[in-house]
C-alpha cells in the first residue's frame, strides 16, 4: 500500500515539474476563458461534483444555475463522510496507542463520541452544523448522520485494513483549530475560480519526489465506471493544490471492498485538468446560454433531470433506451393505477 514511485516507467518522471506544467497550462486556459466572459465571473468552485456534472451533460449543468452549482448544504447524506473523517481523525489522535497502534475503532461509538465532545454551535465546518443539531435537539438528523458516518469509517477501515497503512493522513478534516488539510488552488491571486481536492486521505509525505498517493473512499457507488474518472479529477486537483503530482490515486469502495490504484501520469493529469477547465468554460457560457439541446448528453440522469420535459435529446432517450431500466425492458399498464390495489382477482 505504500506510495512508492513505480520504477517501470509508469507515472510522471518529475512530480514537481508535472504539477507546474499543469498549473501553468490551466492558468493560461482559465485566464483566456474568463477574459472572454461577457461580465466578471464570481465564485466558480470546482470540485468533483461540478466536474462530473459539467462533463456528463453540459446543458444540464448550465441550466442548474446558482442554486445547483453551490454546495447544497449539510444534510445527513452530505455530512456523512466529513463527520466520518473527523471522528476517525480524532480517534487516531486521542488514542493512547498501545504497542501495535491504536485500538480498532468501534465506528458508531467513535462517531457518537465525536458528536458529543468535538462539536459546538458556531464551530467551523461540519462540527458547527452538528453543534447546531445538538443545540436544537435534532436527534433524528444526528442519528441519520451518525449512520452515514459509521458506514464511512467502517468501509475505510475494512478496505484499507487495521492498523491503517503507515503514513496515512486524513484530509479535509474539521479540527478544533479549524479546517485543515484540504488542498485548494486558485489560478491567480483573487481569482474567482477555486479548485478543491476532495481526497479523503493521503498516503505518505508530500515531497518533491511525489512518492505519495491520494485516497478517495466511496461508501457505495452504482458501478465501477466512475472510479477512473474520480481518480483523474483528484490527481489533477491534488497536484494543483499540493504543487506536486501524486504517485497514484487510490479509490476504495465500501460496497464491493475493492481498492483501485490509478497511477498518475501526464495523460491522467491532462485529462483531470481538462475536466477542471470544462467547468469554468460552462460557467462562463452559462452567463449567456443556459440549457441548450446542442450539447445535451442523454443518460440515465435524464430520469431525474428538471430539463427532461423540454429537452429533445433527453426526451428521445427516455422514449428509447431509457425505457429500459437496469438492463431490462420496463412494462407499464395503462390501467394499473386504477386497479393495482385490488386484493384478489375478481370472480365475476
Amino acid at each position: 500500500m505504500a506510495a512508492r514511485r513505480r520504477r517501470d516507467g509508469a507515472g510522471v518522471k518529475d512530480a514537481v515539474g508535472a504539477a507546474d506544467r499543469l498549473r501553468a497550462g490551466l492558468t493560461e486556459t482559465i485566464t483566456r476563458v474568463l477574459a472572454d466572459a461577457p461580465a466578471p465571473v464570481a465564485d466558480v468552485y470546482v470540485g468533483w461534483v461540478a466536474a462530473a456534472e459539467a462533463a456528463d451533460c453540459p446543458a444540464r449543468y448550465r441550466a442548474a444555475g446558482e442554486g445547483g452549482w453551490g454546495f447544497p448544504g449539510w444534510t445527513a447524506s452530505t455530512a456523512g463522510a466529513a463527520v466520518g473523517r473527523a471522528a476517525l481523525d480524532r480517534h487516531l489522535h486521542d488514542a493512547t496507542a498501545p504497542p501495535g497502534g491504536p485500538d480498532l475503532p468501534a465506528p458508531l461509538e467513535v462517531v457518537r463520541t465525536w458528536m458529543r465532545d468535538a462539536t459546538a454551535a458556531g464551530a467551523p465546518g461540519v462540527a458547527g452544523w452538528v453543534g447546531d443539531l445538538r443545540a436544537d435537539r435534532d436527534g433524528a438528523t444526528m442519528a441519520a448522520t451518525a449512520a452515514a458516518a459509521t458506514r464511512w469509517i467502517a468501509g475505510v477501515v475494512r478496505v484499507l485494513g487495521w492498523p491503517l497503512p503507515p503514513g496515512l493522513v486524513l484530509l479535509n478534516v474539521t479540527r478544533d483549530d479549524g479546517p485543515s488539510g484540504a488542498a485548494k488552488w486558485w489560478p491567480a491571486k483573487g481569482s474567482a475560480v477555486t479548485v478543491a481536492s476532495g481526497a479523503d486521505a493521503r498516503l505518505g509525505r508530500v515531497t518533491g519526489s511525489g512518492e505519495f498517493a491520494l485516497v478517495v473512499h466511496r461508501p457505495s457507488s452504482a458501478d465501477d465506471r466512475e472510479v477512473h474518472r474520480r481518480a483523474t479529477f483528484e490527481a489533477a486537483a491534488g497536484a494543483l493544490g499540493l504543487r506536486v503530482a501524486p504517485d497514484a490515486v487510490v479509490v476504495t469502495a465500501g460496497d464491493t471492498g475493492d481498492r483501485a490504484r490509478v497511477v498518475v501520469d501526464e495523460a491522467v493529469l491532462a485529462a483531470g485538468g481538462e475536466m477542471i477547465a470544462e467547468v469554468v468554460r460552462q460557467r462562463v457560457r452559462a452567463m449567456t446560454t443556459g440549457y441548450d439541446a446542442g450539447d445535451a448528453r442523454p443518460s440515465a440522469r435524464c430520469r431525474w433531470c428538471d430539463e427532461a420535459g423540454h429537452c429533445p435529446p433527453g426526451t428521445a432517450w427516455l422514449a428509447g433506451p431509457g425505457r429500459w431500466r437496469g438492463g431490462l425492458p420496463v412494462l407499464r399498464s395503462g390501467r394499473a393505477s386504477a386497479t393495482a390495489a385490488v386484493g384478489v382477482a375478481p370472480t365475476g
Partner: protein
Amino acid sequence: MPVRPASTLAALLAEVDIAAEAEAGDGPDVTGALDDIAALLDHAARSAAAVGGWTPDEPLRLAKGTVGWLLRCPRRALAAGDAEVSDDLVGGLVVDAAAKLATLVPQRAPTVDAALDYLAATGDTAVADHLADRGGRGALPPEVAGRVALLAGAWPTIDPGWWPRVEEPVRAGLAGGAVVVSGRLDLLLGGAPTPRPAVVVEVKAGRWHDGARADGHLYALLVALRDGRPPAAVVTVVADGTTQVEPIRPAVLGTAADRVVHALEVAGTIAAGEPAATRPGPHCGHCPLRPDCPEGSAWRPVADATVPA
C-alpha cells in the same frame, strides 16, 4: 436447511463464539466454496451478458426484488418501479426506521414520531408525502405504533464491538461489470476486520414469509463475496414479535448462487427479445401489470376456484 426456531437477536449475539468464527469462516473448505461460487456466478454472468447484450456501460442491475420476480414471475420483474405507496408499505418503512434508531440511539426507545423524523432526515419523502395527503401523521395506521413498541421492547442493546452498521450497501460486479448484483442491508453486525463473524439482520414489519428467507440468503451471499467470509447467520426480526435465525453454511450460499444464475438466464432471454413468461399466483392480486395480463386476471385463489358441491 431448516430455519432454526429462533431465540432472539440478543440470544444469538450472546451465543456467538469468537473462536468458532475462524473455524466457520476461514477454513479451506469455506474459502474453496466461495471461490467456486464466485467462479460460477461470473461464468453465468458472462454467458447471460453475451445473450442479453449488457456491458459495463449499460449493465444488468439485479437487486433482491428483481431476482425474486425473475424467478417467480418474469413478467412481473419488468413492472415499472414506481409502485403506489400503500399503508402497508408506509408501516413497514416506519418499523424499519424504528429498528435503525434503536441501533443508533440505544439509550432511547424509538417511537413512531422519532422514526418518522429519522426517515425525513435520511431524505426519504415517500412516507411524509403519503401521510400529508391523508391529513398528517395521525393518518398512520394505528397498529404501526404497536409494532414499533413490540420491536423496541425486543431490540437488544448491541455492543459497539459488533460494529453495527445500518443500511450497509453491498455490491458484486460480475462479468467485468456487465452485471451488478447489489443490496442494502437493514443492519450488518461484525465481520472483517472485527474478530466477530458477520451477522445480517433484516427487519420485517409484517409476517415472516419464505421470500424473506431467500432475500436473506442473497444478502449473505453478497457479504460473503465481498468479505471473503460467509456471515454466521441471517436474522430476520419481525415486528409481530418473532425472530428467525438461519445459520449460513456453504450449501446455503450455493442455493443463493443458483437462484442468481437462474435469474441471469431468464434476464438474458428477456433482454434478447424473448417475451417474459407469466406465472400467475397469489402475487397477481398486487401486481401493477395485472390489468393487461390475461393470465393474472384469470388467476383465482384455490378456494375461489373450487366448485361447490
